[in-house]
């Protein structure tokens, strides 16, 4: 399945855009699978202090399942305020 991933902050710079698509092998991928795939394609992601995956506007656990219908975003360390 193909997942569309939103990127913000430095993740947007690393991906070279606000939106990228990631091909994940089967229909039961997790956020951990997504991270492995992204880090292989964008090694700079691993150099961040940390980053989170958000699914449908909520921070997701590493084991959380992703479907093609979910809004998936990469959340690098925040710095608002």
């Amino acid at each position, binding site marked *: 399945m193909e997942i569309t991933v*939103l990127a*913000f*902050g*430095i993740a*947007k*710079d690393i991906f070279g855009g606000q939106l990228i698509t990631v091909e994940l092998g089967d229909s039961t991928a997790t956020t951990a699978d997504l991270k492995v795939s992204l880090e292989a394609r964008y090694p700079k992601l691993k*150099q*961040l*202090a940390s980053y989170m995956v*958000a699914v449908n*506007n*909520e921070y997701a656990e590493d084991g959380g399942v992703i479907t093609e219908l979910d809004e998936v*975003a990469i*959340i*690098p*360390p*925040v*710095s*608002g*305020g």
Partner: protein
Amino acid sequence: MQSQIEIHTEPLNIQACIAWVMSPESGGIDIFIGTVRNATKGKPVVKLEFEAYNQMAVNEINKILKQAFERWPLQKALVHHRTGTLHVGEIPVIIAVSAAHRDAAFEACRYIIDTLKQTVPIWKKEFFEDGEVWVAAHP
């Protein structure tokens, strides 16, 4: 819970924020106003750019306000955050909290800004004369 959360591209309105949190049941209001400082660790800052994941940012701020209302007896709480380009002296964030007693207002206001900086998906890029950097991205 009486709360107001807004994310704006235009300058924030201090007077409107304060007017919104005032209430006849309140004895005190604590307000935190963030302002763009002219330097970071001694290095002159030219401007800042703020970017937000708007819908999720509102959700996360709402969670923080819920926690604050659970922990302290508050009347009203407001968070306005700005995005886009801000120059020195401009205002990225206003937090205002009213309560019957001032201790609750002070503690909740500080809790809200401290937690916002840890959990809310908003990012700040600092522009110096010789380069730019996303704050907090690297160790």
